[in-house]
């Protein structure tokens, strides 16, 4: 079965190990927890990319390493690919000043 890493228990994204196809089940190893959490991918995920470990509403923080890495720019359902198309940085947005 596909594996993924949830680096911090507070994270709402998981990192896939290798690539995964829509519909595949993934065993997510959550740091500090013995039992894996299973998530079904709702889209294809390129090698080592992130997917949502929980539903993430547009505008809410995306959390990895236990810290905020940006915010969702769209609603992201659990199991969906998380990347530049649906999250954005909070830093150095000279386009917004």
């Amino acid at each position, binding site marked *: 079965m596909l594996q993924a890493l949830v680096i911090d228990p507070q994270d709402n994204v998981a990192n896939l190990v290798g690539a995964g196809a829509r519909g595949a089940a993934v065993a997510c190893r959550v740091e500090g927890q013995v039992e894996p959490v299973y998530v079904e991918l709702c889209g294809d995920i390129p090698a080592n990319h992130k997917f949502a470990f929980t539903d993430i509403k547009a505008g809410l923080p995306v959390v990895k390493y236990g*810290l905020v890495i940006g915010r969702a720019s769209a609603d992201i359902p659990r199991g969906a690919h998380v990347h530049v198309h649906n999250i954005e940085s909070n*830093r150095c947005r000279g386009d917004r000043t």
Partner: protein
Amino acid sequence: MTDHFFGYPRPDGQVGIRNHVLLLSGTLYANSTCERVAHTVQNTIPIVHPLGRCQIAPDLAQTFRTLVGHGRHPNAGAVIVIDHFKEQGCTADEIAHEIAAAGKPVEVVNIRRDGGAISATAKATRLAVDLNRQINTQKRERSPLSKLVFGVNCGTSDVTSGLASNRCVGWVADRVIEAGGRVIAAETTEMFGGEELIKARAKTPEIADKILAFIAAMEKSILACGVDLRGSQPTGDNIEGGLSTIEEKALGAMKKWGTKPIVGAVGYAEPIGEESGLWVMDSPGHGGESITGIAAAGAQVMSFSTGGGHTINHPLMITMRLTGNRQSWAAMEETMEVDVSDMFQGTPLEVAGRRLLDEILAICNGRMTKAEALREWNGFAINRCGPSV
């Protein structure tokens, strides 16, 4: 744990892991002379660059400081500074004067004064031969690991960097500090989003404030361009590798910092203090500029972790490349030394970290990196803080 390496003690107390004759170009118009000598005389290392003139004062001072730091670098047993004619505030004589304070042999060649580029090449060639014969009888001596200054840097990062290779580098950084050594991290752009970690790690609030000021100044300079940082950072290869934002890239990059306290913060290419621990230098994320700043502070050896693979190496600070991405290892093994991708198959951090430490110690003791064997010099670049004028 190994507590020593075999190096070349220098008069100023530093210990080199190589004993090269450095050919240091003072200005871009001496670059070709430096390179000609480097092609002719073995054990010479050329440092060439496009700077040294028509820079405003703070920028020129940064160039001067960077060049002096390289002349004083412990991996250089002797130095020849080569100049074109006469710069303003950055002459070969001034650079050599500062290097001489480190107690090593320093010579100056001036292309105009010495009769032109061909005559200067002949003079520098003779000097390089003589200096080689003068320094190459020095033997390696057992040196405590406390004499090691270990640089950490990363580039062409991907998701595997923060999960595997950077964690290994952090593990090694902790071991070096436990042995009394010093570690230098840099890359201010790759601290965006890591402010809370910095506050928690800094030995004093003043050190944290200094680093947070580096970050604020960098962010301000980017905002002043009136554009979105996206498009420049993360880079195209970062995004291909799964990194979505600068914050994600930064938090992965900071895994290289290990877990020990931050004992000091310095500006670009400034010397660090004597205290054992993690030192943080202000630098851009740009790999060449960042590693050049770290080299100027005297790090003998560097770990450069990469996701997509890399050819980067510094000419004087011996640069060991590693990756945690198996596909990148397969594609780029010719210019990388260590593969830690087995961490994704369950190899513990301690095992992969030990592999890295063993390679670093072997390199300190004389094992060539692939870049050294290939005589590749892809990583020297001096950061600018002002326009050309």
